[in-house]
């Protein structure tokens, strides 16, 4: 069940990424076809935009995020248990030990960042360190290190770059509509239909992109949960950590829209936010998945020993 969950979540998010890429290419091609009467030009421009933004967020992303929550390196003496737990998880996963950060926030939360396992960091809030017991902390760290192991930073970057390209290219298209830029298509037969499709596209493409992006983000959270369960062989501890984290308490004061997708649980938990637009799956669903694994976990262990 744990193996299955990891594989299933991986498959789902790759499928979504594929869909997203197709969608972005479609939008770019359409805009190109309308604007320059050549879809390829649109595609090339889209790729150009994507490459530039990918490069910046890939190389500078982690330091921006860490300083935005005022994270500092955790002292190995004061935060001994934290360092120990990170050590244990790096042994369990075979990853190099990430740099350990703490940030001043009483709300329990944590995130991982860094472009690859060799340049990765894990940051936990002061509140998380204080409120969770050792096993729960281990579950959370395993979740964060799973993000590193699954290359989620890269994954999230790619997706947001694709969405960014869609947004930019639709706004180019929009401008062209307003200023009546160089297309002769509108005088052609069927030009009106083309314009209507275009209008719908500039309204809905960025929105649709955002929805797919959030769906991918949620899938990666499920994946990190299941990988963490595999890493610790203790899904129950992560489930109980998630319960503690989701309990209403002091509101986070460091989170903002930019760092939100990175956290282990979404800091803004407004009732108005639709599930479609949230970066994280509802905590109940995540706990449910973990509980299922906990239930089948004992069976799995037995099967593993029997098989030998």
């Amino acid at each position, binding site marked *: 069940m744990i193996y299955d969950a990891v594989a299933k979540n991986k498959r789902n998010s790759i499928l979504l990424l594929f869909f997203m890429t197709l969608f972005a290419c479609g939008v770019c091609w359409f805009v190109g076809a309308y604007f320059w009467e050549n879809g390829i030009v649109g595609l090339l421009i889209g790729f150009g935009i994507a490459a530039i933004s990918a490069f910046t967020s890939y190389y500078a992303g982690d330091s921006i995020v860490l300083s935005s929550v005022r994270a500092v390196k955790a002292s190995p003496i004061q935060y*001994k248990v934290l360092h*120990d737990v990170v*050590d*244990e*998880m790096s*042994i*369990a996963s*075979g990853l190099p030990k990430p740099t350990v950060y703490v940030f001043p926030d009483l709300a329990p939360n944590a995130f991982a960042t860094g472009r690859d396992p060799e340049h990765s960091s894990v940051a936990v809030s002061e509140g998380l360190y204080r409120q969770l017991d*050792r096993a729960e902390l281990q579950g959370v760290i395993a979740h964060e290190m799973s993000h590193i192991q699954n290359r989620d930073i890269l994954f999230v970057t790619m997706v947001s770059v694709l969405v960014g390209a869609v947004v930019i290219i639709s706004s180019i298209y929009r401008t062209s509509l307003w200023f009546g830029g160089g297309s002769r298509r509108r005088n052609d037969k069927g030009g009106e239909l083309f314009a209507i499709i275009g209008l719908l596209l500039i309204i809905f493409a960025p929105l649709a992109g955002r929805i797919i992006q959030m769906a991918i983000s949620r899938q990666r959270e499920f994946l990190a949960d299941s990988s963490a369960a595999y890493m610790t062989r203790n899904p129950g501890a992560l489930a109980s950590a998630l319960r503690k984290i989701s309990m209403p308490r002091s509101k986070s004061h460091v989170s903002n829209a930019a760092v939100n997708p990175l956290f282990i649980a979404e800091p803004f938990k407004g009732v108005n936010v639709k599930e479609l637009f949230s970066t994280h799956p509802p905590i109940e669903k995540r706990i449910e998945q973990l509980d299922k694994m906990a239930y089948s976990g004992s069976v799995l262990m037995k099967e593993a020993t029997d098989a*030998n």
Partner: protein
Amino acid sequence: MALWIIIGLVALIIMFVWATYNKLIQLKNRIQNAWAQINVELKRRYDLIPNLVNTVKGYMKFEKETLEAVIQARNTCIKASGVSEQGAAENQLSGALRQLFALMENYPDLKSNQNVLNMQEELTNTENRIAFSRQFYNDIVLRFNESIMMFPGNIVASIFGFRKQDYFEVDMNTVQNTPQIDLSFDSSTPTAPTGSDVQKR
């Protein structure tokens, strides 16, 4: 035309065999490394025990026997040579440590002592490291075994004589059989590294 197709196919097959062979070698080296890691963690445990005993000694004067049993078990572990001997010693050490921890519950002073708390965390960490390094070893062995048993990797594996590796197992009922591992390449076939099995003696 047909010639080119054949050349292309052969090139593809060579590339596949090349990649698979390298992947298997990589996994095999990782298995070796993971095994070494377990021993590093075991050594860490041996080094820690004298500190632990010294820390709690003052508080637990009346538990001299238990403390001595721990020290004794640790020394036996270090001296142990054969696998079964080492397994028995490891088992005894774990038992002695468990008993020590159980007894510590009777001493409230101990639980409020920062040194003891630190020591306890240190030991928890060490025990976890041992457990997780064994788990990681098994995870890699699983990946290795899967890649040499599944199609089409199994063809490459059989050409180069890779063999299935054994898992690290803990026998809960009797002695903990710490398996002796022999990962050296078989010298009889120097060009093709064979999967020397993990041997349990």
